[in-house]
Structure formats: C-alpha cells, structure tokens
C-alpha cells in the first residue's frame, strides 16, 4: 500500500486486540510483500509477539482485518489448520517435542498434516538437517542438544511444511552468545532463498544486513517503519530515536 504493494502476502488493517481490559494492539496497519524480510523491534510488552501470533491465529484479533495468502482470518475460517501449515513459526523457547527424536520432530507434521509418506518425510527432514548444519543429530532427543542446535531443529521442523511465510519470535533471546550466530546464519540463508520472513529480534546486525524493512512497535502500535538504511540513519519519530539510542548504546 504505502510502498505501492505489488503483491502483499500479509495485509493487516487497523488490527486491535484486547486481553481482558488491557489493549495489546491499538490498531495496526501494515502489509508484507512476498519475499520481504520484516524485522519487528520495540520495547518489551509493546505487543510484538501478540502481533505476529495474530498472523497465524495463535491469538485472535477482535477488530480490524488480517489477510494471509489471500485468506481473511475470521472466527469462521474453516480449516484454520491449513492456513497455519502455510505459516511457519519459530519460538523463543524452541518448543521442540521432548518425547520425540529430532527426526520424528521434523517428520511428524509432514506425515500427519501434509500426508506425506514416511520415507518421503524422512528424506526431506534429512535434507533440511543438512541445510541447518546438524545432520548427525537426527537420532537424538531434543534434551540432548545445545540451545542453538535445538533452535535450528525448530527451524527445520517449520521449513519441512514448505511454508510460504516464516514467523520468528525472538529466536535468539534464549541462547548463549556463542550460539546466536549459528541461528542467525540459518535465518540469513533462508532470507536469501526468497522466503517471506517476519521476525521479532533485537539483533541489530541482522536487521541492518538482512531486513528489507524495520518496524518499531510501542504501546500496541507501529511508531515508525522503513528500510534499515533510513531507519537507522535518520529516524523521524522521537520515540524511535530514544529506542535506538538505548539499544545501540552498548
């Protein structure tokens, strides 16, 4: 829209969301192009997670419109599961299935949701594990892996569903510094393949290098958005200036 939306894959119009009396989203309007990488930043509690969880309907918005891949998310959408399987999500806490091996974690939804044969699913899982760099961990259980490895398995698990969109909610916040890089590299490689990505992250290096657009949230609304070069070089809104000075000061 404002950037002459040629082919928006996510459209949000005036999205509002309340938790009880508390308004977490106060009217969010934006859209994401196919293949675009959007990084969402903002202070804690500003509604970033709520926003991206509305995109795959883990949370339900109460007012406004959200259209994902041509389908509007309303309470009477049938087959919400089908839409969800088009949208991959990676969580801060990985949320791997602890009772299943890495291989089973990646094949389970392929077999049950995508209805692939087991051998087909295992082949894809292996290819994805190669891609995220840990093919040798296939037979282990999540509890036996480091945090960085777990998060890469979680990414592989989402990618195995061939999603059109990938959502990341602070994927590196629970990791030790030395493991952050390995996850960011996987994300960067993914962006290079033309995947549409919406990522909440405070890794400013990643944002600067990989993002097409940065979105700043505060108090449940978008304060400012724009390409990283402009966003970092001359932020317009005073709130943006303050936030950037806080996170770039160290």
């Amino acid at each position, binding site marked *: 829209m404002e950037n002459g939306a040629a082919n928006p894959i996510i459209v949000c119009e005036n999205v509002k969301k309340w938790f009880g009396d508390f308004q977490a989203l106060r009217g969010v309007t934006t859209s994401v192009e196919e293949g675009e990488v959007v990084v969402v930043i903002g202070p804690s509690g500003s509604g970033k997670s709520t926003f991206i969880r509305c995109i795959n309907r*883990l949370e339900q918005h109460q007012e406004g419109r959200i259209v994902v891949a041509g389908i509007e998310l309303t309470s009477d959408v049938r087959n919400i*599961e089908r*839409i*969800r399987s088009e949208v991959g999500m990676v969580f801060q806490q990985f*949320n791997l*299935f602890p009772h299943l091996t890495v291989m089973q974690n990646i094949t389970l*939804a392929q077999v049950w*949701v995508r209805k692939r044969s087991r051998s087909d699913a295992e082949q894809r899982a292996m290819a994805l594990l190669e891609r995220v760099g840990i093919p040798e961990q296939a037979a282990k*259980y999540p509890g036996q892996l480091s945090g960085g490895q777990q998060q890469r398995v979680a990414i592989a698990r989402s990618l195995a569903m061939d999603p059109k969109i990938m959502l990341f909610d602070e994927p590196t916040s629970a990791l030790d510094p*030395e493991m952050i890089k390995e996850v960011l590299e996987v994300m960067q490689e993914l962006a290079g393949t033309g995947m549409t990505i919406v990522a909440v992250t405070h890794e400013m290096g990643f944002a600067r290098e990989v993002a097409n657009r940065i979105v700043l949230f505060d108090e449940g609304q978008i304060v400012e958005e724009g390409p990283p070069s402009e966003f970092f070089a001359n932020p317009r809104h005073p709130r943006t200036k303050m936030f950037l000075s806080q996170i770039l000061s160290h």
Partner: protein
Amino acid sequence: MSAESFDLPLPPEPPPKVSRIGWLDWVRKNLFNSVFNGTLTAVLTAGLLLLILAVLRFVFSPDRRWEVMPPNAANYVVEAYPREDLFNMWLSLWIVAALAGFSTASWGMRGQVSVIKVVAAVRAIGATALVVGVLSLWSPAGSATQTVLVFGGVALFGVGVGAMRLVREEREVSVARVLAIVGALLVGLVWYMPLESGTTWPLTITALVVAAFHWVGKLVGQWLSDRLMKRVVTILWVLSFPVIYLHIQRNPSLVWEEVTSWLPWAGLLIAAGPAVIWIVSRAGREQAAGVNFLLGAVAIYSWVIQWPMAIRVLFLLLTLFSLATPTFAASPRARRAFYWTWLAGGVCTLYLFLAGIGSTDLATRGHFLGGINLTILLAVGGTALSFPLGVMLALGRTSSMPIFRILSIVYIEVVRGVPLITVLFFGDKVIPRFLPPGLDFAGEAKALLAITAFSAAYLAENVRGGLQAVSKGQTEASRALGMTTAQMTMLITLPQALRVVIPALVGQAIALFKDTSLVAIIGLADFLRVARDIVPNQPDSLGSILENLLLAALVYWIFAFSFSRASLRLEKRLGVGTR
C-alpha cells in the same frame, strides 16, 4: 562448541580412584557412628530378629498344615470352574506362555548379565536359606524342610563363594539362559511337589511352550525389523485377550457340531463382502440398486426361514455396507479402508456369536470363575478397560466443550465420592433392572464393569494431572504446524502426559489388583476368598486358615512387587524425568 582443540597446557586426567570400603567399615560408618545410632541399630536388630523368630516358629510349628496346599492347587487357581473343562484353562495359559516366550525374544531379554551378579545371587540365596534354616531350629520341632534349608543353604553358599573366586569379572551370560535354568529348576520342583494329579504335565508343557516360542521369536526376529516385530507382538497380545476370553467364558451350551454347520458359510460371506463392495462401488446407479435389493431380500428371507442367527446378522450387515458404499468408498483409498472395516466388523460379529452372546445361560449358571484366575481377570481386565475410559474422561474434563466437561466432572466426582463396595453392589443389583426381565450378566462381568467404572474415575484424575504438566509451548508448536486438536492430543499432549503419570498409574493398578478382593462381597470367589473361606472349609483341609492367609499375603505381594519392578524398568526405558 568448536571441535578443534588448541594444545592448551593441561591434559585430561583419569578420575580419582574410589577406594572400596569393606562391609565392616560400612557398618561402622553408617550404623554405629554415634551412641544414639548404635543403640537404635541394636534395638531395631533385636526387634527384627524376634519378629523373624516368631514368624519362623509359626511357619515350622508341627501344628501347621502346609501339606493341604498342593492338593488344593486347582481351588486356588480356578476355584469352581468345571473340572471337565479345565483344558480350556490350560490352553489359555499356554497361549499366554507362547506369547510371553515370543515377546522375550524381542523385549530386552536379549541382554547379557555379568556372571558375577548371577553367582552373587546364588550366594545370597544360599546364605538366606542357611540363616532361615538355622534360626528355625529354635522352633519347637524339626522337620525335613529345615534340614533341606540348612544343608542346601550351606551347599549353595559354598558353591557361590567358590565360583566367585573362579569367574573373571568381565564374563557375561545371556539373560535368556539364566531364566531357562531357573525355569528348569521350577519345573523340577513341580515334579517333586505332590500336586493334584493331572497338573504336572500341563505345567511342564507350559515351561516348554515358553522356551519353544522364545526360539520361534528369535527366528522370526531375524526376518522382521525390530519395529515390525514389536508391532506384531503388541497385536498378538491384544488379540490374545478375546481369544482367551472365548476359551474360558465360552458359552457351555454352545454345540460345536451346530457351529460347524454355519461357520464355513459365515466365513464365506465375510470373504465375499469386499467383492460386493467392489461391484457396488463400480456399478451404475441402477445396478447398485439391484444388488442392494437382492441383498435386502435375502436378508429378510433369512429371517423368515430362520437361518442360523449369525448368518442372518451377517446378511443384514452386508446389506447395510452395500447401501453405504457410495458414501464411504468413493476413492480407492477410502474403499480400501471400507474393506478393512467390513472384514473387522464381520470377524467381530462371528466372534461375539462364538463367545455366546445372547445366551441366557451366562446368567442362570451362576459364577464359574474363581481363584487367582478371577483376581487376575478383574485386575488385568479392569486396568485395561479403565485405561481408555479414564483417558477419555480426563480429555473430557480438560476439553473446551462444556457438555463433555460437565459430564466428565459429574462422573468423576460422583464415582470418587463413593466406596468401591457401593459401586460393586450397584453393579450387581442395579444393572439387571435396566436389562430385559430374565436377562442378566454373569457376576464376573458385573464385577468387571463396576471395577472398571470405579478405576476409570481415579485414572482420569491422574491423567489430568499429566495433561496439565504439558507446557503451553507444546500445544502452540503443534498448532503452529497445522495439527488438528485430535492430532495434537494423540501425538503430543497425551504421550507426554502419560509418560509423566506412569508411576501413579502403576500405583493405581497395584491398588486395583488388591481391591479386587472386595468382589467377595457380591458372592464371587476371588483368590483371597478361596484362601480365607473355601480351602479351609474343605473336609481334608479344615482349620488351615492361618496358613492360607499367609499364602494369600505372599502371593499378593509377589504379584504387586514384580509389577512395581516391571514399571521401574518401563520408566527407565521411556526415560521418564530425563526427556
């Protein structure tokens, strides 16, 4: 996490040696490390010794009539089951034995155990026998058993000590071989004991069946993958329940000659079902209608001329399947599922007829199962049946749908607020009132229903606890992958929840096993009742009640204890608490 190493100055060192302390040191350190502890140890040891002495004096008293037990073996195990049908019982036991032998080939029995451990066990058994034998000498009169204990103990202990010096530490033997030797010894014991006539051979056969099927399992295991083998074993076990039930509970008025007159036809009908479905699914509208009409006509006709009931019902079923074919067998895939549904349905129908459904004999005959047999049937059957019911109740209680939730809560809270005896009475006296007059279930079946209903409520609460322990992240991840609620429950939340509650479930199963003794109150003769009431009142066993109670306690303990050990192993294998 880097794999390369950079020649840092400190190389790794072996861990420090832990010096082995002798048992005397251990005793000094742990039992006599202070005046208070020392006194406590001495007092408790003295008390324990007195207790053991009292028990031994009781056991070895000349007044005890242990000799009444072997001749009563059949009473303990099957009680009133018609002795002329006893072969059914043996056959059931052999089925279980065959499955057990078969399973040992695939379940962990392929392991090795160090010879040292085996020798240590022999030594410990010898020492225990010796101590018991010596202590029992203080009881009023000696007996042959005491001599056996003392000399056998000395011999075993000596062999153990000697062997301990000979074997090297790393030698191992297969668990299967050790078990085979123990089994052979038990069979020897069976031949030595004065059991009721006609039991030694069947018991020996049981042991042989276990061994034979262990080898069969090994052979088959070479052909099948581990995973397939496990699946086969599980399916066989599940199938064994209805088969055994058929053999034990089989309608005694069932005449085999009559059955054989319709059984082949019924088999043919079942086999022909898929062909009918295939034809109807391919035919045009009119032809399909023609086939349906024909089938319907035959079904009605079969009722008019009173063909055997099983055939009539099967024709009716086939007509219904044929009518439903256009709806359920549209795609080749759906058609295949439909074939299987038909085959399964047909076989189940046949089975129910063979098992004597609709026969009023079951009600009029009174109870005919008893003893350990009944106890095990109620415990295993109650656990197995209450498991799915309990899981469903737990899911219902945590469901977001109010009807299921309210129904589950009402059921759980009502049943948990009532003692088991009440539920048993309810089953016994109230169920018949809902049935057509003159019809009733067997007492065993009513007890099983009541126990299942009771146990399910408690099981549901345990499982609910497990469900609540599954983190919210797990459900969110499943949803984000596009799973439906049913898939999420079956694949993610329920498996995790059950893993957490295994210890609680085992505890409940053990409690249930012991609670089955309450069925005596509705007139059934479970093992405890047999031991307390029936055997001590046999003309040749009068007044042996104390001995029998001790035996009952021992048997219950052996079952419960081995069950809890087995669950420990299961927990370890599933990695409860580590994954």
